[in-house]
Protein backbone atom coordinates (compact mmCIF):
# COMPACT_ATOMS: atom_id res chain seq x y z
CA UNK A 1 0.00 0.00 0.00
CA UNK A 2 2.80 2.38 0.80
CA UNK A 3 4.15 2.12 -2.75
CA UNK A 4 0.76 3.12 -4.08
CA UNK A 5 0.52 6.05 -1.72
CA UNK A 6 3.89 7.22 -2.98
CA UNK A 7 2.80 7.23 -6.61
CA UNK A 8 -0.52 8.99 -6.21
CA UNK A 9 -0.61 12.78 -5.96
CA UNK A 10 -2.61 12.82 -2.72
CA UNK A 11 -3.16 10.23 -0.01
CA UNK A 12 -6.91 10.26 -0.50
CA UNK A 13 -6.55 9.55 -4.22
CA UNK A 14 -4.81 6.30 -3.37
CA UNK A 15 -7.89 5.09 -1.54
CA UNK A 16 -9.41 3.05 -4.37
CA UNK A 17 -6.25 1.14 -5.26
CA UNK A 18 -5.58 0.51 -1.57
CA UNK A 19 -9.06 -0.92 -1.15
CA UNK A 20 -8.28 -3.17 -4.12
CA UNK A 21 -5.18 -4.41 -2.33
CA UNK A 22 -7.42 -5.55 0.52
CA UNK A 23 -10.03 -6.99 -1.85
CA UNK A 24 -7.42 -8.95 -3.77
CA UNK A 25 -5.89 -10.35 -0.63
CA UNK A 26 -8.90 -10.96 1.58
CA UNK A 27 -11.85 -11.03 -0.81
CA UNK A 28 -13.71 -8.41 1.18
CA UNK A 29 -12.94 -5.40 3.39
CA UNK A 30 -13.33 -6.15 7.10
CA UNK A 31 -13.54 -3.53 9.79
CA UNK A 32 -9.88 -3.65 10.78
CA UNK A 33 -8.86 -3.14 7.18
CA UNK A 34 -10.98 0.01 7.30
CA UNK A 35 -9.04 1.10 10.38
CA UNK A 36 -5.82 0.63 8.45
CA UNK A 37 -7.09 2.62 5.48
CA UNK A 38 -8.31 5.44 7.71
CA UNK A 39 -4.90 5.61 9.35
CA UNK A 40 -2.71 5.30 6.28
CA UNK A 41 -4.69 7.53 3.98
CA UNK A 42 -5.86 10.06 6.56
CA UNK A 43 -9.45 9.90 5.43
CA UNK A 44 -12.56 9.65 7.56
CA UNK A 45 -14.29 6.36 8.28
CA UNK A 46 -17.37 7.75 6.61
CA UNK A 47 -15.43 8.28 3.39
CA UNK A 48 -14.17 4.71 3.29
CA UNK A 49 -17.62 3.24 3.87
CA UNK A 50 -19.07 5.58 1.27
CA UNK A 51 -16.78 4.02 -1.31
CA UNK A 52 -17.39 0.51 -0.04
CA UNK A 53 -21.14 0.94 -0.40
CA UNK A 54 -21.10 2.94 -3.65
CA UNK A 55 -18.98 0.64 -5.83
CA UNK A 56 -20.51 -2.76 -6.55
CA UNK A 57 -17.21 -4.59 -6.66
CA UNK A 58 -16.18 -3.64 -3.13
CA UNK A 59 -17.61 -6.00 -0.53
CA UNK A 60 -17.73 -5.76 3.25
CA UNK A 61 -18.75 -9.36 3.93
CA UNK A 62 -16.91 -12.62 3.21
CA UNK A 63 -17.80 -13.85 -0.26
CA UNK A 64 -18.61 -17.27 -1.61
CA UNK A 65 -15.87 -19.42 -3.08
CA UNK A 66 -17.08 -18.67 -6.61
CA UNK A 67 -19.26 -15.69 -7.38
CA UNK A 68 -20.89 -16.25 -10.75
CA UNK A 69 -21.87 -12.92 -12.27
CA UNK A 70 -24.19 -13.20 -15.25
CA UNK A 71 -24.94 -10.11 -17.31
CA UNK A 72 -28.66 -9.43 -17.63
CA UNK A 73 -28.46 -6.21 -19.62
CA UNK A 74 -30.02 -5.70 -23.01
CA UNK A 75 -27.76 -7.46 -25.51
CA UNK A 76 -27.19 -10.50 -23.35
CA UNK A 77 -30.91 -10.53 -22.62
CA UNK A 78 -31.69 -10.69 -26.32
CA UNK A 79 -29.17 -13.48 -26.73
CA UNK A 80 -30.66 -15.58 -23.93
CA UNK A 81 -29.34 -14.46 -20.55
CA UNK A 82 -32.56 -15.23 -18.71
CA UNK A 83 -32.89 -18.86 -19.81
CA UNK A 84 -29.21 -19.29 -18.96
CA UNK A 85 -29.79 -17.87 -15.50
CA UNK A 86 -32.78 -20.16 -15.05
CA UNK A 87 -30.57 -23.08 -16.06
CA UNK A 88 -27.89 -22.16 -13.55
CA UNK A 89 -30.53 -21.70 -10.86
CA UNK A 90 -31.73 -25.22 -11.49
CA UNK A 91 -28.23 -26.69 -11.54
CA UNK A 92 -27.23 -24.98 -8.30
CA UNK A 93 -30.58 -25.23 -6.59
CA UNK A 94 -30.62 -21.54 -5.69
CA UNK A 95 -32.36 -18.40 -6.94
CA UNK A 96 -30.61 -15.45 -8.53
CA UNK A 97 -29.02 -13.29 -5.82
CA UNK A 98 -28.45 -16.18 -3.41
CA UNK A 99 -25.63 -18.43 -2.27
CA UNK A 100 -25.43 -22.21 -2.01
CA UNK A 101 -25.53 -23.47 1.59
CA UNK A 102 -21.97 -24.81 1.34
CA UNK A 103 -20.78 -21.31 0.36
CA UNK A 104 -19.36 -22.70 -2.86
CA UNK A 105 -21.37 -20.64 -5.31
CA UNK A 106 -23.10 -17.28 -5.34
CA UNK A 107 -25.19 -16.31 -8.37
CA UNK A 108 -25.45 -12.60 -9.13
CA UNK A 109 -27.06 -10.69 -11.96
CA UNK A 110 -24.87 -7.82 -13.14
CA UNK A 111 -25.11 -4.98 -15.63
CA UNK A 112 -23.19 -4.80 -18.91
CA UNK A 113 -19.67 -6.19 -18.55
CA UNK A 114 -18.53 -5.37 -22.06
CA UNK A 115 -18.99 -8.64 -23.96
CA UNK A 116 -22.27 -7.80 -25.68
CA UNK A 117 -21.46 -9.38 -29.05
CA UNK A 118 -20.48 -12.60 -27.32
CA UNK A 119 -23.45 -12.95 -25.01
CA UNK A 120 -24.69 -14.40 -22.85
CA UNK A 121 -21.60 -14.10 -20.72
CA UNK A 122 -20.45 -14.72 -17.18
CA UNK A 123 -17.73 -13.16 -15.08
CA UNK A 124 -15.91 -15.09 -12.38
CA UNK A 125 -13.40 -12.72 -10.86
CA UNK A 126 -10.87 -12.03 -13.59
CA UNK A 127 -12.22 -14.75 -15.85
CA UNK A 128 -14.77 -13.72 -18.45
CA UNK A 129 -16.66 -16.56 -20.15
CA UNK A 130 -18.39 -15.65 -23.39
CA UNK A 131 -20.75 -17.22 -25.93
CA UNK A 132 -22.31 -19.36 -23.25
CA UNK A 133 -24.80 -22.14 -23.73
CA UNK A 134 -26.37 -24.40 -21.15
CA UNK A 135 -23.90 -27.11 -22.09
CA UNK A 136 -20.86 -24.88 -21.76
CA UNK A 137 -22.23 -23.69 -18.44
CA UNK A 138 -22.48 -27.26 -17.18
CA UNK A 139 -18.84 -27.86 -18.10
CA UNK A 140 -17.83 -24.75 -16.18
CA UNK A 141 -19.83 -25.70 -13.11
CA UNK A 142 -18.50 -29.23 -13.09
CA UNK A 143 -14.96 -27.98 -13.34
CA UNK A 144 -15.49 -25.50 -10.52
CA UNK A 145 -16.97 -28.18 -8.34
CA UNK A 146 -13.73 -30.07 -8.80
CA UNK A 147 -11.82 -27.01 -7.67
CA UNK A 148 -10.47 -26.13 -11.11
CA UNK A 149 -11.19 -22.77 -12.66
CA UNK A 150 -11.72 -23.54 -16.36
CA UNK A 151 -9.83 -21.49 -18.86
CA UNK A 152 -11.54 -18.34 -20.08
CA UNK A 153 -10.52 -16.60 -23.30
CA UNK A 154 -9.55 -13.52 -21.31
CA UNK A 155 -6.98 -15.58 -19.40
CA UNK A 156 -4.52 -14.96 -22.21
CA UNK A 157 -4.28 -11.38 -20.96
CA UNK A 158 -3.63 -11.94 -17.29
CA UNK A 159 -0.31 -12.73 -15.71
CA UNK A 160 -1.82 -15.72 -13.88
CA UNK A 161 -3.30 -16.90 -17.16
CA UNK A 162 0.07 -16.84 -18.83
CA UNK A 163 0.15 -13.48 -20.61
Amino acid at each position, binding site marked *: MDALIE*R*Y*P*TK*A*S*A*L*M*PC*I*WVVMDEVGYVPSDAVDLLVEK*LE*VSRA*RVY*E*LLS*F*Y*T*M*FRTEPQAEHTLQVC*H*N*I*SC*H*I*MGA*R*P*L*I*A*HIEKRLGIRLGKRTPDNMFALEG*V*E*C*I*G*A*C*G*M*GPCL*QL*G*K*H*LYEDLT*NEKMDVILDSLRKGIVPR*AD*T*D*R*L*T*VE*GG*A
Partner: protein
Amino acid sequence: MSLEQYKILSSRFGRDDGHKLSVYEAEGGYTALKKVMSTMKPGDVIEEVKESGLRGRGGAGFPTGVKWGFVPKDAAQVYFMVNADESEPGTFKDRYLMDYDPHQTIEGTIISCFAVNSSLAFIYIRGEFGWLVDRVQTAVDEAYAAGYLGKNILGSGFDLEVIVHKGAGAYICGEETGLINSVEGLKGQPSIKPPFPAIEGFLKQPTVVNNVESVAAVPWIINNGAAAYKNIGSEKSAGTKLFSVSGPIKNPGVYEIPLGMPFSEFFNDHLGGMVEGETLKAVIVGGSSVPILTAEEAMQVNLDYESLDEVGTFLGSGGMIIIPESSDMVELIQVLMHFYFDESCGQCTPCREGTGWLHQIIKKMRHGEGTADDLDLIEHVCQGMAGLTICALSDAAVMPMRSFIEKFRPEFEALIQETAPAGNASLWPRGE
Protein backbone atom coordinates in the same frame (compact mmCIF):
# COMPACT_ATOMS: atom_id res chain seq x y z
CA MET B 1 -17.08 -1.76 -49.69
CA SER B 2 -14.13 -3.46 -48.11
CA LEU B 3 -13.12 -2.24 -44.70
CA GLU B 4 -9.49 -3.20 -45.21
CA GLN B 5 -8.45 0.34 -46.12
CA TYR B 6 -9.92 1.71 -42.91
CA LYS B 7 -7.69 0.04 -40.34
CA ILE B 8 -6.67 3.20 -38.53
CA LEU B 9 -7.44 1.84 -35.09
CA SER B 10 -7.91 -1.86 -35.68
CA SER B 11 -4.93 -2.95 -37.72
CA ARG B 12 -3.72 -5.34 -35.03
CA PHE B 13 -7.09 -6.64 -33.86
CA GLY B 14 -7.31 -10.38 -33.48
CA ARG B 15 -3.58 -11.00 -33.48
CA ASP B 16 -1.76 -12.62 -30.63
CA ASP B 17 1.37 -10.46 -30.82
CA GLY B 18 0.19 -6.95 -31.68
CA HIS B 19 0.33 -5.85 -28.07
CA LYS B 20 4.06 -6.28 -27.83
CA LEU B 21 6.26 -3.22 -28.02
CA SER B 22 8.66 -4.86 -30.46
CA VAL B 23 5.87 -5.66 -32.88
CA TYR B 24 4.29 -2.22 -32.50
CA GLU B 25 7.58 -0.48 -33.20
CA ALA B 26 8.39 -2.77 -36.13
CA GLU B 27 5.08 -1.77 -37.68
CA GLY B 28 5.77 1.94 -37.34
CA GLY B 29 4.67 2.46 -33.80
CA TYR B 30 5.98 5.50 -31.87
CA THR B 31 6.95 7.25 -35.12
CA ALA B 32 4.25 9.81 -34.44
CA LEU B 33 5.61 10.40 -30.97
CA LYS B 34 9.10 10.88 -32.32
CA LYS B 35 7.79 13.32 -34.91
CA VAL B 36 5.95 15.29 -32.23
CA MET B 37 8.86 15.37 -29.82
CA SER B 38 11.34 16.54 -32.43
CA THR B 39 9.38 18.84 -34.72
CA MET B 40 6.17 20.01 -33.09
CA LYS B 41 5.06 22.29 -30.31
CA PRO B 42 2.02 21.59 -28.12
CA GLY B 43 0.02 24.23 -29.97
CA ASP B 44 0.83 22.51 -33.28
CA VAL B 45 -0.52 19.22 -32.02
CA ILE B 46 -3.73 20.87 -30.84
CA GLU B 47 -4.18 22.53 -34.22
CA GLU B 48 -3.58 19.30 -36.11
CA VAL B 49 -6.14 17.41 -34.06
CA LYS B 50 -8.63 20.29 -34.35
CA GLU B 51 -8.16 20.33 -38.12
CA SER B 52 -8.64 16.62 -38.36
CA GLY B 53 -12.21 16.92 -37.09
CA LEU B 54 -11.73 14.12 -34.55
CA ARG B 55 -14.68 14.05 -32.16
CA GLY B 56 -14.93 12.37 -28.76
CA ARG B 57 -15.55 8.69 -29.34
CA GLY B 58 -16.93 7.82 -25.91
CA GLY B 59 -20.40 9.11 -26.57
CA ALA B 60 -20.53 12.89 -26.35
CA GLY B 61 -18.89 13.56 -29.71
CA PHE B 62 -17.26 16.80 -28.62
CA PRO B 63 -14.40 17.93 -30.92
CA THR B 64 -11.26 16.64 -29.26
CA GLY B 65 -8.89 19.39 -30.39
CA VAL B 66 -11.33 22.05 -29.20
CA LYS B 67 -11.53 20.40 -25.76
CA TRP B 68 -7.74 20.46 -25.55
CA GLY B 69 -7.80 24.13 -26.50
CA PHE B 70 -9.79 25.01 -23.37
CA VAL B 71 -6.87 24.19 -21.08
CA PRO B 72 -5.16 27.41 -19.93
CA LYS B 73 -1.76 27.58 -21.60
CA ASP B 74 -0.03 28.82 -18.48
CA ALA B 75 -1.43 26.22 -16.08
CA ALA B 76 1.09 25.03 -13.55
CA GLN B 77 -0.26 21.49 -13.44
CA VAL B 78 -2.53 19.73 -15.91
CA TYR B 79 -3.92 16.22 -15.53
CA PHE B 80 -5.01 13.80 -18.23
CA MET B 81 -7.42 10.93 -17.85
CA VAL B 82 -7.94 8.19 -20.41
CA ASN B 83 -11.51 7.07 -19.98
CA ALA B 84 -11.53 3.29 -20.28
CA ASP B 85 -14.58 2.91 -18.06
CA GLU B 86 -16.52 1.38 -21.00
CA SER B 87 -19.87 0.56 -19.41
CA GLU B 88 -22.50 1.78 -21.86
CA PRO B 89 -24.72 -1.25 -22.60
CA GLY B 90 -23.93 -2.57 -26.05
CA THR B 91 -20.42 -1.14 -26.07
CA PHE B 92 -17.39 -3.38 -26.13
CA LYS B 93 -14.87 -1.69 -28.37
CA ASP B 94 -12.41 -0.01 -26.00
CA ARG B 95 -11.54 -3.40 -24.55
CA TYR B 96 -10.33 -4.47 -27.98
CA LEU B 97 -8.13 -1.41 -28.31
CA MET B 98 -6.48 -2.09 -24.97
CA ASP B 99 -6.35 -5.84 -25.54
CA TYR B 100 -4.84 -5.95 -29.02
CA ASP B 101 -3.09 -2.59 -29.33
CA PRO B 102 -2.35 -1.01 -25.96
CA HIS B 103 0.70 0.81 -27.30
CA GLN B 104 -1.43 2.70 -29.77
CA THR B 105 -3.43 4.09 -26.90
CA ILE B 106 -0.28 4.79 -24.91
CA GLU B 107 1.37 6.60 -27.80
CA GLY B 108 -1.83 8.58 -28.31
CA THR B 109 -1.90 9.41 -24.63
CA ILE B 110 1.67 10.69 -24.60
CA ILE B 111 1.06 12.92 -27.60
CA SER B 112 -2.19 14.19 -26.11
CA CYS B 113 -0.52 14.96 -22.80
CA PHE B 114 2.22 16.82 -24.62
CA ALA B 115 -0.41 18.88 -26.40
CA VAL B 116 -2.02 20.02 -23.15
CA ASN B 117 1.15 20.06 -21.09
CA SER B 118 0.09 17.34 -18.69
CA SER B 119 2.73 15.56 -16.67
CA LEU B 120 0.50 12.95 -15.07
CA ALA B 121 -2.02 10.75 -16.83
CA PHE B 122 -4.35 8.13 -15.44
CA ILE B 123 -5.73 5.28 -17.50
CA TYR B 124 -9.03 4.57 -15.76
CA ILE B 125 -10.05 1.01 -16.53
CA ARG B 126 -13.40 -0.20 -15.29
CA GLY B 127 -13.07 -2.68 -12.44
CA GLU B 128 -14.85 -5.43 -14.36
CA PHE B 129 -12.03 -5.31 -16.92
CA GLY B 130 -9.65 -6.50 -14.23
CA TRP B 131 -8.57 -9.16 -16.73
CA LEU B 132 -7.27 -6.37 -18.98
CA VAL B 133 -5.17 -4.52 -16.42
CA ASP B 134 -2.05 -6.72 -16.64
CA ARG B 135 -1.84 -6.26 -20.39
CA VAL B 136 -2.12 -2.49 -20.14
CA GLN B 137 0.29 -2.26 -17.22
CA THR B 138 2.83 -4.43 -19.06
CA ALA B 139 2.60 -2.16 -22.08
CA VAL B 140 3.05 0.89 -19.87
CA ASP B 141 6.10 -0.72 -18.27
CA GLU B 142 7.52 -1.46 -21.71
CA ALA B 143 7.01 2.15 -22.71
CA TYR B 144 8.86 3.34 -19.60
CA ALA B 145 11.70 0.98 -20.32
CA ALA B 146 11.97 2.25 -23.87
CA GLY B 147 12.09 5.86 -22.73
CA TYR B 148 8.66 6.78 -24.09
CA LEU B 149 7.44 7.51 -20.59
CA GLY B 150 9.06 9.04 -17.54
CA LYS B 151 11.40 11.97 -17.47
CA ASN B 152 12.75 13.82 -20.50
CA ILE B 153 10.96 11.69 -23.09
CA LEU B 154 13.14 11.22 -26.16
CA GLY B 155 15.28 14.08 -24.97
CA SER B 156 12.49 16.59 -25.42
CA GLY B 157 12.38 17.83 -21.85
CA PHE B 158 8.80 16.61 -21.57
CA ASP B 159 7.98 14.42 -18.54
CA LEU B 160 4.99 12.12 -18.25
CA GLU B 161 3.98 9.61 -15.60
CA VAL B 162 1.17 7.18 -16.31
CA ILE B 163 -0.82 5.45 -13.61
CA VAL B 164 -3.17 2.59 -14.47
CA HIS B 165 -6.17 3.08 -12.19
CA LYS B 166 -8.84 0.44 -11.73
CA GLY B 167 -12.49 1.32 -11.20
CA ALA B 168 -14.77 -0.77 -9.00
CA GLY B 169 -18.14 -1.09 -10.64
CA ALA B 170 -20.01 2.14 -11.34
CA TYR B 171 -21.25 3.18 -14.78
CA ILE B 172 -21.39 6.78 -13.66
CA CYS B 173 -17.60 6.87 -13.44
CA GLY B 174 -17.67 7.07 -17.21
CA GLU B 175 -18.96 10.63 -16.91
CA GLU B 176 -15.87 12.79 -17.02
CA THR B 177 -16.31 14.59 -13.69
CA GLY B 178 -17.52 11.35 -12.09
CA LEU B 179 -14.28 9.78 -13.28
CA ILE B 180 -12.24 12.64 -11.89
CA ASN B 181 -13.93 12.42 -8.49
CA SER B 182 -13.42 8.68 -8.47
CA VAL B 183 -9.70 9.10 -9.00
CA GLU B 184 -9.63 11.68 -6.21
CA GLY B 185 -10.82 8.98 -3.83
CA LEU B 186 -14.41 10.14 -3.62
CA LYS B 187 -17.54 8.39 -4.80
CA GLY B 188 -17.72 8.67 -8.56
CA GLN B 189 -20.45 11.26 -8.49
CA PRO B 190 -20.33 13.93 -11.21
CA SER B 191 -19.56 17.50 -10.15
CA ILE B 192 -21.67 20.55 -10.80
CA LYS B 193 -20.47 22.60 -13.76
CA PRO B 194 -19.19 25.30 -13.81
CA PRO B 195 -16.33 24.91 -13.08
CA PHE B 196 -15.53 22.79 -16.15
CA PRO B 197 -12.73 20.19 -15.90
CA ALA B 198 -10.49 21.98 -18.40
CA ILE B 199 -10.33 24.87 -15.93
CA GLU B 200 -10.81 23.12 -12.60
CA GLY B 201 -10.87 19.34 -12.46
CA PHE B 202 -8.75 16.80 -10.64
CA LEU B 203 -7.49 18.36 -7.40
CA LYS B 204 -8.87 21.66 -8.71
CA GLN B 205 -6.34 21.68 -11.59
CA PRO B 206 -7.09 21.78 -15.33
CA THR B 207 -7.93 18.25 -16.44
CA VAL B 208 -8.68 16.65 -19.80
CA VAL B 209 -10.68 13.44 -20.00
CA ASN B 210 -10.72 11.59 -23.32
CA ASN B 211 -12.14 8.24 -24.36
CA VAL B 212 -9.68 5.48 -25.28
CA GLU B 213 -10.78 5.48 -28.90
CA SER B 214 -10.29 9.24 -29.25
CA VAL B 215 -6.77 9.04 -27.90
CA ALA B 216 -5.94 5.97 -29.99
CA ALA B 217 -6.67 7.86 -33.21
CA VAL B 218 -4.07 10.54 -32.47
CA PRO B 219 -0.90 8.73 -33.69
CA TRP B 220 -2.42 8.07 -37.13
CA ILE B 221 -3.50 11.68 -37.42
CA ILE B 222 0.00 12.88 -36.60
CA ASN B 223 1.61 10.42 -39.04
CA ASN B 224 -0.78 11.02 -41.93
CA GLY B 225 -1.98 14.54 -41.30
CA ALA B 226 -5.30 16.13 -40.45
CA ALA B 227 -6.33 16.39 -44.09
CA ALA B 228 -5.99 12.66 -44.62
CA TYR B 229 -8.20 12.00 -41.60
CA LYS B 230 -10.77 14.53 -42.68
CA ASN B 231 -10.81 12.94 -46.10
CA ILE B 232 -12.28 9.82 -44.61
CA GLY B 233 -15.82 9.88 -43.35
CA SER B 234 -18.62 12.31 -44.13
CA GLU B 235 -18.89 16.07 -44.29
CA LYS B 236 -19.28 16.73 -40.60
CA SER B 237 -17.96 13.43 -39.26
CA ALA B 238 -14.33 12.89 -40.03
CA GLY B 239 -12.46 9.62 -39.79
CA THR B 240 -13.48 6.15 -38.73
CA LYS B 241 -15.46 4.85 -35.80
CA LEU B 242 -15.40 1.54 -34.00
CA PHE B 243 -18.84 0.00 -33.82
CA SER B 244 -19.31 -2.90 -31.44
CA VAL B 245 -22.33 -4.81 -32.71
CA SER B 246 -24.43 -7.27 -30.76
CA GLY B 247 -27.69 -9.08 -31.27
CA PRO B 248 -28.81 -12.03 -33.42
CA ILE B 249 -26.87 -11.11 -36.56
CA LYS B 250 -24.59 -13.44 -38.45
CA ASN B 251 -21.40 -11.55 -37.64
CA PRO B 252 -21.48 -9.75 -34.29
CA GLY B 253 -18.24 -8.13 -33.15
CA VAL B 254 -16.21 -4.95 -33.44
CA TYR B 255 -15.91 -3.14 -36.78
CA GLU B 256 -14.01 -0.08 -37.85
CA ILE B 257 -15.99 1.75 -40.49
CA PRO B 258 -15.66 5.11 -42.19
CA LEU B 259 -18.21 7.49 -40.73
CA GLY B 260 -21.08 8.05 -43.10
CA MET B 261 -21.46 4.44 -44.24
CA PRO B 262 -25.14 3.70 -44.75
CA PHE B 263 -26.52 1.42 -42.10
CA SER B 264 -28.07 -0.79 -44.76
CA GLU B 265 -24.67 -1.41 -46.29
CA PHE B 266 -23.14 -2.09 -42.89
CA PHE B 267 -25.94 -4.42 -41.97
CA ASN B 268 -26.09 -6.41 -45.19
CA ASP B 269 -22.48 -6.48 -46.36
CA HIS B 270 -20.63 -6.73 -43.07
CA LEU B 271 -22.95 -7.85 -40.32
CA GLY B 272 -24.35 -10.49 -42.63
CA GLY B 273 -27.92 -9.68 -41.83
CA MET B 274 -29.99 -11.49 -39.23
CA VAL B 275 -29.44 -15.09 -38.31
CA GLU B 276 -31.75 -17.73 -39.72
CA GLY B 277 -35.27 -17.30 -38.44
CA GLU B 278 -35.00 -13.73 -37.23
CA THR B 279 -36.09 -10.44 -38.83
CA LEU B 280 -34.84 -6.98 -38.02
CA LYS B 281 -37.20 -5.07 -35.77
CA ALA B 282 -35.22 -2.17 -34.36
CA VAL B 283 -31.72 -0.81 -33.97
CA ILE B 284 -30.07 1.05 -31.11
CA VAL B 285 -27.18 2.61 -32.97
CA GLY B 286 -24.85 3.90 -30.28
CA GLY B 287 -25.33 2.44 -26.82
CA SER B 288 -28.52 2.05 -24.80
CA SER B 289 -28.80 5.76 -24.01
CA VAL B 290 -29.58 6.86 -27.58
CA PRO B 291 -33.15 6.91 -28.95
CA ILE B 292 -34.07 3.71 -30.73
CA LEU B 293 -34.73 3.44 -34.47
CA THR B 294 -37.24 1.16 -36.14
CA ALA B 295 -35.92 -1.18 -38.81
CA GLU B 296 -37.35 1.07 -41.53
CA GLU B 297 -35.74 4.16 -40.06
CA ALA B 298 -32.40 2.42 -39.63
CA MET B 299 -32.35 1.31 -43.23
CA GLN B 300 -32.63 4.95 -44.36
CA VAL B 301 -29.86 6.32 -42.27
CA ASN B 302 -26.09 6.87 -42.58
CA LEU B 303 -23.86 6.14 -39.65
CA ASP B 304 -22.45 9.54 -38.84
CA TYR B 305 -23.13 12.33 -36.35
CA GLU B 306 -25.16 14.61 -38.58
CA SER B 307 -27.41 12.01 -40.21
CA LEU B 308 -28.28 10.44 -36.91
CA ASP B 309 -28.96 13.85 -35.34
CA GLU B 310 -31.38 14.54 -38.15
CA VAL B 311 -33.49 11.50 -37.38
CA GLY B 312 -33.62 12.30 -33.70
CA THR B 313 -31.01 9.94 -32.33
CA PHE B 314 -27.23 10.14 -32.10
CA LEU B 315 -24.01 8.26 -32.69
CA GLY B 316 -23.13 7.87 -29.01
CA SER B 317 -20.54 5.26 -28.16
CA GLY B 318 -21.04 3.17 -31.26
CA GLY B 319 -22.46 0.33 -29.20
CA MET B 320 -24.92 -0.99 -31.76
CA ILE B 321 -27.66 -3.32 -30.61
CA ILE B 322 -29.68 -5.20 -33.23
CA ILE B 323 -33.15 -6.07 -32.01
CA PRO B 324 -35.08 -8.92 -33.61
CA GLU B 325 -38.79 -9.25 -34.23
CA SER B 326 -38.94 -11.89 -31.51
CA SER B 327 -38.04 -9.36 -28.84
CA ASP B 328 -40.67 -7.95 -26.51
CA MET B 329 -40.02 -4.20 -26.38
CA VAL B 330 -41.60 -3.74 -22.98
CA GLU B 331 -39.37 -6.47 -21.63
CA LEU B 332 -36.32 -4.77 -23.15
CA ILE B 333 -37.19 -1.37 -21.73
CA GLN B 334 -37.57 -2.96 -18.33
CA VAL B 335 -34.04 -4.29 -18.65
CA LEU B 336 -32.79 -0.82 -19.53
CA MET B 337 -34.78 0.96 -16.83
CA HIS B 338 -33.35 -1.45 -14.29
CA PHE B 339 -29.89 -0.51 -15.51
CA TYR B 340 -30.35 3.23 -14.98
CA PHE B 341 -32.06 2.68 -11.64
CA ASP B 342 -29.09 0.54 -10.59
CA GLU B 343 -26.46 2.96 -11.82
CA SER B 344 -27.86 6.36 -10.85
CA CYS B 345 -25.35 7.85 -8.45
CA GLY B 346 -28.21 9.26 -6.37
CA GLN B 347 -26.96 12.80 -5.95
CA CYS B 348 -29.64 14.78 -7.62
CA THR B 349 -33.23 14.25 -6.92
CA PRO B 350 -34.82 14.10 -10.40
CA CYS B 351 -32.51 11.27 -11.49
CA ARG B 352 -32.37 9.41 -8.19
CA GLU B 353 -36.11 9.30 -7.76
CA GLY B 354 -37.01 9.35 -11.44
CA THR B 355 -34.95 6.33 -12.45
CA GLY B 356 -36.43 4.38 -9.57
CA TRP B 357 -39.92 5.49 -10.44
CA LEU B 358 -39.63 4.63 -14.15
CA HIS B 359 -38.31 1.20 -13.31
CA GLN B 360 -41.12 0.64 -10.85
CA ILE B 361 -43.83 1.65 -13.32
CA ILE B 362 -42.53 -0.66 -16.04
CA LYS B 363 -41.98 -3.50 -13.62
CA LYS B 364 -45.53 -3.23 -12.38
CA MET B 365 -46.75 -3.05 -15.95
CA ARG B 366 -45.03 -6.33 -16.70
CA HIS B 367 -46.47 -7.84 -13.56
CA GLY B 368 -49.90 -7.17 -14.97
CA GLU B 369 -50.51 -4.15 -12.77
CA GLY B 370 -50.27 -1.58 -15.53
CA THR B 371 -52.98 1.05 -15.80
CA ALA B 372 -54.26 3.14 -18.66
CA ASP B 373 -52.60 6.23 -17.19
CA ASP B 374 -49.15 4.68 -17.05
CA LEU B 375 -47.93 5.95 -20.40
CA ASP B 376 -48.94 9.49 -19.50
CA LEU B 377 -47.37 9.03 -16.09
CA ILE B 378 -44.14 7.89 -17.67
CA GLU B 379 -44.07 11.00 -19.84
CA HIS B 380 -44.76 13.11 -16.76
CA VAL B 381 -41.83 11.52 -14.93
CA CYS B 382 -39.59 12.02 -17.96
CA GLN B 383 -40.42 15.71 -17.98
CA GLY B 384 -39.29 15.96 -14.38
CA MET B 385 -35.98 14.32 -15.30
CA ALA B 386 -34.80 15.56 -18.69
CA GLY B 387 -32.35 18.44 -18.75
CA LEU B 388 -32.65 19.14 -15.03
CA THR B 389 -29.73 17.28 -13.52
CA ILE B 390 -26.02 17.55 -12.86
CA CYS B 391 -25.13 15.00 -15.55
CA ALA B 392 -26.78 13.28 -18.46
CA LEU B 393 -27.62 9.93 -16.87
CA SER B 394 -31.12 11.23 -16.27
CA ASP B 395 -31.45 12.03 -19.97
CA ALA B 396 -29.84 8.71 -20.83
CA ALA B 397 -32.72 6.96 -19.09
CA VAL B 398 -35.36 9.24 -20.56
CA MET B 399 -34.31 8.90 -24.19
CA PRO B 400 -34.77 5.16 -24.59
CA MET B 401 -37.91 5.28 -22.44
CA ARG B 402 -39.54 7.95 -24.59
CA SER B 403 -38.39 6.54 -27.91
CA PHE B 404 -39.50 2.98 -27.13
CA ILE B 405 -42.99 4.27 -26.34
CA GLU B 406 -43.01 6.58 -29.32
CA LYS B 407 -42.08 3.85 -31.77
CA PHE B 408 -43.59 0.75 -30.20
CA ARG B 409 -46.57 2.11 -28.36
CA PRO B 410 -48.95 -0.67 -29.40
CA GLU B 411 -46.86 -3.22 -27.48
CA PHE B 412 -47.18 -1.19 -24.30
CA GLU B 413 -50.88 -0.68 -24.77
CA ALA B 414 -51.44 -4.33 -25.48
CA LEU B 415 -49.69 -5.32 -22.30
CA ILE B 416 -51.71 -2.88 -20.24
CA GLN B 417 -54.90 -4.26 -21.77
CA GLU B 418 -54.23 -7.83 -20.81
CA THR B 419 -53.76 -8.73 -17.21
CA ALA B 420 -51.26 -11.29 -16.11
CA PRO B 421 -52.78 -14.26 -14.28
CA ALA B 422 -52.92 -13.60 -10.57
CA GLY B 423 -50.18 -15.27 -8.61
CA ASN B 424 -47.78 -15.33 -11.50
CA ALA B 425 -44.60 -15.27 -9.46
CA SER B 426 -42.13 -14.95 -12.27
CA LEU B 427 -41.69 -12.42 -15.01
CA TRP B 428 -38.94 -14.10 -16.88
CA PRO B 429 -39.35 -17.11 -19.11
CA ARG B 430 -37.98 -20.08 -17.29
CA GLY B 431 -35.92 -22.30 -19.50
CA GLU B 432 -36.92 -25.90 -19.10
